């Protein structure tokens, strides 16, 4: 089948602002959008820039806005989109070229929540024990691939770039609810601050955008409750 692929292009050396460019591509229904981008790059225009690595939804490189929704290009199939497909960079991060955005603000928020196990007690000779139920408690957050789909779908993040954003809060959740961790108070400093969880307006965009089906909004709510309960 023929697909019309409309891509929002931007080259800082050539364009004042982003411009749409249209390509006709021969596609199979089971092709990934990533396959179409590769076809354009190989056959029609080598200057098209986008990120990709694993090609099957594990590395998180190719998050982009596809038909108006944040998705991974490698996990989105032509058969689910129809014959006109629009592709834009994820929103709220500076565009470097075409579909490539500057990820540094996103990772700065990640670092701010101290995304690592904090436990200064000397470890035992064997593993720290953890029941299957304790392990299950934070399972959702461990699925996160840091693709930024959630954070860049959040209207609060678009308006205020200092908001930590859903992804960083999910990372904090993953440790706050890990029975082995002792660092929640340290994390609450960033999470309870003006750029932290209280900015969340429960818009659910993040949950809809997550390609790993993490219930992001629910996890943010759990972090809010953990901070509130900690005060009493």
């Amino acid at each position: 089948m023929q697909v019309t692929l409309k891509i929002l292009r931007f080259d800082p050396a050539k364009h004042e602002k982003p411009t749409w460019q249209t390509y006709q591509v021969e596609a199979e229904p089971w092709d990934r959008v990533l396959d179409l981008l590769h076809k354009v790059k190989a056959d029609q225009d080598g200057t098209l820039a986008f990120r990709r690595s694993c090609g099957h939804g594990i590395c998180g490189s190719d998050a982009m806005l596809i038909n108006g929704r944040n998705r991974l290009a490698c996990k989105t199939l032509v058969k689910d989109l129809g014959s006109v497909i629009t592709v834009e960079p994820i929103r709220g991060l500076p565009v470097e070229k075409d579909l490539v955005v500057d990820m540094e603000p996103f990772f700065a928020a990640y670092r701010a929540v101290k995304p690592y196990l904090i436990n200064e007690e000397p470890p035992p000779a064997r593993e720290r024990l953890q029941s299957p139920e304790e392990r299950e408690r934070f399972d959702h957050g461990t699925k996160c691939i840091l693709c930024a789909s959630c954070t860049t779908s959040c209207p609060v993040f678009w308006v205020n770039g200092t908001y930590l954003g859903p992804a960083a809060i999910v990372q904090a959740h993953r440790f706050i609810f890990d029975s082995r961790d002792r660092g929640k108070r340290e994390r609450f400093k960033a999470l309870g601050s003006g750029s932290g969880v209280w900015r969340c307006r429960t818009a659910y965009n993040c949950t809809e955008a997550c390609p790993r089906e993490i219930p992001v909004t629910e996890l943010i709510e759990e972090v809010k409750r953990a901070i509130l309960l900690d005060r009493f």
Partner: protein
Amino acid sequence: MAHRHEVIVVGAGGAGLATALYAAREGADVAVVSKLYPTRSHTGAAQGGIGAALGNVEEDHWEWHMFDTIKGGDYLTDQDAAEVFAKEVIEAVLELEHMGLPFDRLPNGKIAQRRFGGHTKDWGKAPVHRAAHAADRTGHMILQTLYQQCVKHNITFYNEFHVTDVILEDGVAKGLVAYELATGELHLFQAKAIVIASGGFGRIYKVTSNAYTLTGDLQAILYRKGLPLEDMEFYQFHPTGLYPLGILLTEGARGEGGILRNALGERFMERYAPTIKDLAPRDMVSRAMYLEVREGRGVGPKKDHVLLDLTHLPPEVIEKKLPDITEFSRIYLGVDPLKEPVPVMPTAHYAMGGIPTTLWGQVIRDENNTVVPGLYAAGEAACVSLHGANRLGTNSLGDLVVFGRRAGIHAARFAKDADYHELSEEHLGASRERIERIKASTGKEKVAVLRAELQQTMMDNASVFRTGELLAKQVEILKELMDRYRHISIDDKGDAYNTELVEALELGYLLEVSEALVHSALNRTESRGAHAREDYPERDDQNWLKHTLAYKVADGKVAFRYKPVVLGRFEPKARTY
């Protein structure tokens, strides 16, 4: 621009991050240079587990793990490497747990373990639960945990910096040149010690589980500079790639009880490995699948694949322990593994060969183990040689933490007593010239076209089964492709995010590693592990119980030297399961 760090690690996958972390813990100033953002590396795609004789589910011993690794490697494994590995991987897994890795748990709170191909108890008598796992995302969890620790240790990252040159002078490693993707600028990196942890090169093949970015860059750069590549003929095909894409479906699926079936519905592995059936090592299962297809028992309109049957497993096992591969089947094929078998075919997966190193990750330049001062390698890019002729499942994740840690510690200690070397802008010259030549070229050859031809012909002539005739044909094809590569041109002449330029450079690397692989395969006239020569079907210990060191002499010309296999407590025996 110029930068200076005591230890510079190339690559931000599991091996690179483990190296960086342990070097930092030794007190070194460490930086990581990666062509991707961290956590985008392919370690994240490893699914099933990390093998270690923890003995949490049943009796297990590091000696059994050592034996399985050596037998699995068809006795090409260096036994000193296997011993260090089988002992230290236990400690490494416990350390990962202490770092916060979310392993699945047993009811008693210990790390859960499952069965995996080629892992046995009692010297091969029956499968054993050895693979510690975190759902079917074990690699993802290892990558995330190591990155988290690197953040904690404030390690410096140069993200999306594409290394174009390793500066070697007077036999000593002095620094690196890297191309910054965002700006097109070349950077000079001065280091006391350099660790290559840049991963594999599965993209030489058409059907592969490997990321688009796995193109053997650093192996090729060192090979061009006259350093050897070891045992390149041993390339692993993983039996269960999702048909036809090649996306990995973990061996853990068979560890949990999944069964391979042909078009007649037969459990064909009973014929090939009666003791452990579907849990035979990957080389044996991949060959069995090819033979089934060749004998007309393949599935589908083209009769070119087989089926992985999970339908008899309890749905909760599939949903809880194999959630990701279940999702892959549903998304990419519309097949629900709970209800119907999944189409699979062997997929290019892992390079057993690579940059030769000592047990401490030091790169060596010859059969006498002469070390290149300041240069280290770890992970899939390296060859210690732990995996020999065929790697057992879960031993890649173990390899990268055990030997990443060793390389990091040794590199940091080496750097303490070493001085920086003088470097100048002149060292950028070769990289600049190469990049400018590609940008200025008006040739008619296209990167995507040459790459597709390379990948198809490597698949046809140098994959699971080989013959002298096909390999010789591929040698000629590679010569022609290398000639044509000189005439490639690209559309993008810009500086910012010129990913087309990067793909052009990567194609050059793919051609070089293919050359080393094909010549090494043509040269080795026996069948051992993943290297199956139909014209030499037997293993030949008399002549070939030795490692290949391949040296580039000129384009299309390769010279060989040999290194004895380090033997020890296990005598080479026939390999039956």
